[in-house]
């Protein structure tokens, strides 16, 4: 089969790595080796462990820059370089190798992961300074970076899957880092189990690829799509989407992300905002030949994205916990990315652009929140903040810049990337365009509202913190990373989208950017979206500046209560999966003990009852009974043998 969109990308034949590209394996190996040293070195590495942790990621970043520079030296068509390390398994037609693929898409992620990752590592030196387990924290962070790099660099779906589960493990370890708190341990397990539902989708997708294409490598799969049945390709797309929903906390597998905020704040910034949760977007964009050939799957992606962007934004409005509000925002922004990715060639580049920009401003917001928590004895309740702008000016100003970037103040990162997504959504056909575009535009005003609410409750108004809290600005090791991230928040969007740098850079992987044809004049959006942003700001000001913020949360209406309970995501899971599951396991344990085993014991009792009549005079020890059985069996065997021989 082949639909019109498929012909965009020519068959891919990556070149063999040489020169700077032969260092690709180091990208993964450096942080992995560091994690191993820190984990197996134990307490001996406590004194310098954090320094090694930072150094390994920064070294990886430097290698990434070298490879990026080398990549720019190639012609646009030749920017796909593979490095084969060794074969993992070769059974029948199934062949998989540890292999890396450097191309424009993966190098973007490499720079994001090691760049923002490096900044967050440095920040963590200060944030975790008083934690006796800081070394272990850095070991897990390094492990995460290595796994995430494997995820984006793997040249086949199996390596991608290994990285995929590796980041899941790191996420599990880091959410549960303070595992002596029950809430953290439970949240960690929940994140892993919910993600496994997504993993189920991704692994079945890989099985289906193998039976359809006889291969699981990117080249093998993508080059075979033309011959495959439409149904199989659509099924693969939908299964990949299920995986993406788990990892990227998209509806219906969103429930774990809010609980994941139990982890230390740098983890929330790196894993649960900037990088890991965007893996779903990566896998969809990476699989663009599959989705381009499966319009149904694409439609599903856009629907998931549109629903989640509203779902997350709604939760963001209702939370008083600054981290959970940001987590809702993350779900929402990743919803935008999925929406864009589902739009096909018209949206891939914007999905990645928004992903990169989001990596900067959301990391900045989380680290800013961490800085505020650091100053207020780990308080996360925004009703206990207020007026912090004077106490922590650097945190305040970096937070303001990130706020301006995320809500889409013109010329800052979000304005460049998010507004392009809204535009592309409106241009997506007559009915779907209005629905998707409408959802995306509604999301703009809600985003503006909840972010402004956060700024007001945290930095403006009256001081509402408790008496023994003495807020202060964080040390330089934390504020410098904030400043660096702000630079990305301010200029990132212009750099990527202004002058079409990113779309043309990505074109060899995802095809050239398809021009959007809006059903109305583009001026409507150019003016309309900033107006929506302004409306959101004004609404928040009206609600939270003109009236003082009460320390005790007001009861709120039905919608607020629903938002505070994560729109009943957990209640749903509990009612539909957990409680029936508990009944099922209990019933089954009973069934096993009384029915399956009971039948066997019944037969044994029949035989045993007969034999007990014979041995009434005996000791009655079960052991002698068994021994007699053994002897009996031996005798039967011998008898049978004799019969055969005769």
């Amino acid at each position, binding site marked *: 089969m082949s639909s019109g969109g498929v012909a965009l990308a020519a068959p891919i034949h990556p070149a063999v790595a040489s020169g700077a590209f032969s260092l690709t394996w180091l990208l993964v190996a450096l942080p992995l080796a560091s994690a191993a040293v820190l984990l197996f070195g134990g307490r001996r590495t406590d004194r310098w462990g954090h320094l090694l942790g930072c150094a390994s990621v920064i070294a990886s970043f430097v290698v990434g820059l070298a490879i990026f520079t080398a990549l720019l030296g190639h012609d646009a068509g030749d920017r796909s370089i593979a490095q084969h390390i060794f074969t993992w398994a070769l059974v029948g037609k199934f062949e998989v190798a540890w292999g890396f693929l450097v191309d424009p898409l993966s190098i973007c992620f490499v720079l994001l992961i090691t760049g923002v990752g490096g900044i967050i590592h440095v920040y963590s030196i200060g944030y975790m300074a008083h934690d006796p387990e800081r070394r272990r924290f850095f070991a897990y962070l390094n492990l995460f970076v290595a796994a995430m790099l494997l995820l984006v660099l793997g040249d086949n779906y199996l390596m991608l899957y290994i990285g995929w589960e590796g980041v899941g493990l790191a996420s599990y370890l880091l959410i549960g880092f303070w595992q002596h708190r029950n809430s953290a341990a439970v949240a960690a397990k929940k994140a892993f189990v919910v993600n496994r539902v997504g993993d189920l989708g991704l692994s079945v997708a890989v099985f289906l690829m193998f039976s359809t294409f006889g291969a699981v490598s990117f080249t093998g799969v993508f080059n075979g799509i033309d011959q495959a049945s439409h149904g199989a390709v659509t099924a693969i797309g939908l299964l990949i989407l299920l995986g993406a929903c788990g990892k990227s906390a998209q509806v219906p597998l969103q429930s774990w992300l809010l609980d994941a905020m139990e982890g230390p704040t740098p983890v929330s910034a790196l894993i649960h905002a900037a990088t890991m949760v965007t893996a779903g977007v990566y896998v969809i964009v990476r699989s663009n030949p599959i989705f381009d050939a499966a319009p149904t799957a694409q439609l599903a992606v856009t629907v998931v994205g549109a629903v989640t962007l509203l779902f997350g934004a709604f939760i963001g409005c209702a939370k008083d916990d600054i981290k959970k509000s940001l987590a809702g925002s993350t779900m929402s922004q990743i919803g935008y990315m999925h929406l864009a990715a589902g739009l096909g060639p018209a949206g891939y580049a914007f999905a990645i652009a928004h992903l990169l920009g989001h990596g900067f401003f959301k990391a900045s917001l989380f680290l800013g929140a961490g800085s505020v928590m650091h100053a207020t004895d780990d308080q996360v309740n925004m009703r206990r903040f207020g007026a912090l702008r004077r106490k922590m000016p650097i945190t305040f100003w970096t937070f303001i810049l990130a706020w301006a970037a995320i809500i889409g103040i013109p010329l800052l990162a979000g304005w460049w990337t998010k507004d392009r997504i809204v535009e592309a959504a409106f241009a997506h056909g007559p009915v779907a365009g209005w629905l998707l575009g409408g959802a995306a535009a509604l999301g703009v005003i809600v985003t503006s509202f909840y972010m402004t609410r956060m700024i007001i409750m945290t930095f403006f108004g009256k001081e509402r913190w408790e008496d023994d809290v003495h807020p202060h600005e964080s040390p330089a090791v934390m504020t410098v990373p904030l400043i660096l991230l702000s630079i990305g928040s301010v200029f990132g969007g212009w750099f990527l989208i202004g002058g079409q740098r990113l779309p043309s850079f990505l074109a060899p992987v995802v095809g050239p950017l398809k021009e959007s044809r809006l059903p109305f004049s583009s001026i409507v959006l150019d003016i309309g979206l900033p107006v929506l942003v302004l409306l959101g700001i004004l609404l928040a000001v009206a609600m939270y500046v003109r009236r003082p913020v009460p320390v005790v949360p007001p009861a709120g209406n039905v919608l607020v209560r629903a938002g505070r309970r994560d729109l009943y995501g957990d209640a749903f899971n509990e009612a539909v999966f957990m409680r029936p599951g508990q009944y099922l*396991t209990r019933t089954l344990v009973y069934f096993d003990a009384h029915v399956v085993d009971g039948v066997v014991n019944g037969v044994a009792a029949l035989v045993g009852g007969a034999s007990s009549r014979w041995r009434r005079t005996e000791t009655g020890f079960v052991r002698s009974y068994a021994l007699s059985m*053994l002897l009996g069996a031996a005798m039967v065997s011998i008898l049978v043998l004799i019969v055969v021989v005769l």
Partner: protein
Amino acid sequence: MFPYLTVIGVVPLVAAIVVAAAPRERTGTAKWVALLASLVSFVLTLVMAAQFRADGPRFQFVENHAWIPQFGVRYALGVDGISLVLIGLTVVLVPVAIAGAWRERGARVDGGDKGYFALVLTLETALVGAFAALDLFMFYVLFEVMLIPMYFLIGRYGGIRRQYAAVKFLLYSLAGGLLMLAAVIALAVSASEQGRQTFMFEALTKLHLGAGAERWMFLGFFVAFAVKASLFPFHTWLPDAVSESRPSSAILLVGAMDPAGAYGMIRYCLQLFPNAAHFFTPVVLVLAVIGVLYGALAAIGQKDVQRLLAYTSVSHFGLIVLGIFAMTSQAQVGATFYMVSAGLSMGALFLLAGVMTARRGSRLIDDFGGVYRVAPVLGGTFLVACLSGLALPGLATFTSEFLVLLGTFSRYPVAAGIATTGIILAAVYMLWMYQRTMTGPRTPAAERMRDLGRRERWAVAPLILLLIVLGVFPKPVLDAIAPAVKQTMTQLHVQDVNAEGK
């Protein structure tokens, strides 16, 4: 040529006699003799494996002598890739089990601890012999002989209900064994009717059997192997046997002896009775898929650490049987590899669970909590073991589980799809157990928990190391298994599903 297989099998037996005969005050020395003997077998197996050629003849290191010429019974040993890796698994697990039992104190032991080690070594001889036998009669004898040391390992050295558990184990196994015996005899009769009085495996594969007779014989073998591999619904002896066993006995029972059942299926059920195997495949696949989910769900509901692990094993063996009967090269290679990786994984889990329960004096999950804070090395290694139990990519169990499901999917997508939901359940039972035992605030119970000692670290380290190495670089082992699987598939007249055909 050096008779590797005989020596690998006999060294433990000789040591067992020495250990059993040693005077009681020499128990300390006897333990060292036991450990050394098991290590000698291990080293010899390594040397042998290094000389094994995957592209060579099917059976290598063959020893073939007349044993009971009147019946055509021969003392015939040899290994293909499948039996080689299972012998490898056995010789790795036995020293680990011995090291794990080093200071365990059995309940009401008569005759001191050395009897325990003698039994473990005897079991090793029977296992190695069963995996290496090329003569069906010899296989049958050794397969049944295994029961004797295991019966005493459970019934003499186990927990409070050990005798109930041991008898149950024995009755189940004997019942299965008798069915197999009947089938063995029937097969021998058929052979002699066709003018070949022999029990040699390769000769038996060439017999012409009537469809009805073949099916009955298949069933005789299959039930015996299904009992041993604890396939649903023949599994209920396992949780009792495991939970009443010492951890070291459980390692051998689940890690090395259960695979003998699965090995019997791929070697004997499929190759001696290929037509019957095809006939019964739908039934077996259904039982296997039920076993995967049933074992996992039952594990979630357990309160006792060892019982929980026993049910996870029921789930794993469901997958193994699924892979064997899916009849694709990926699934069968994966299933064989799964026997090895599950053995390593269960070995680590039972070893560490044993350390925990010995320290705490209880096997109930609810009696633990917050152990990680007190004993981080124990917590960390236990986490790795749990992750291997849920088949985390990068660990050996993933390699095998993935290959089984991938290979099964290409022929039976629905069965594989249902079985794949097991990966969610595995995450639930493993991480829930880890969470309830290791995390949370320190409990008074955890307060006295010592961290892993040096002996315990040495015992668990090889298992963890192998799980990682075979997860990252499984190719050499897969390459050894693949030719044997190819041979099996030829015998069955099946080929991999052709990808282009769809």
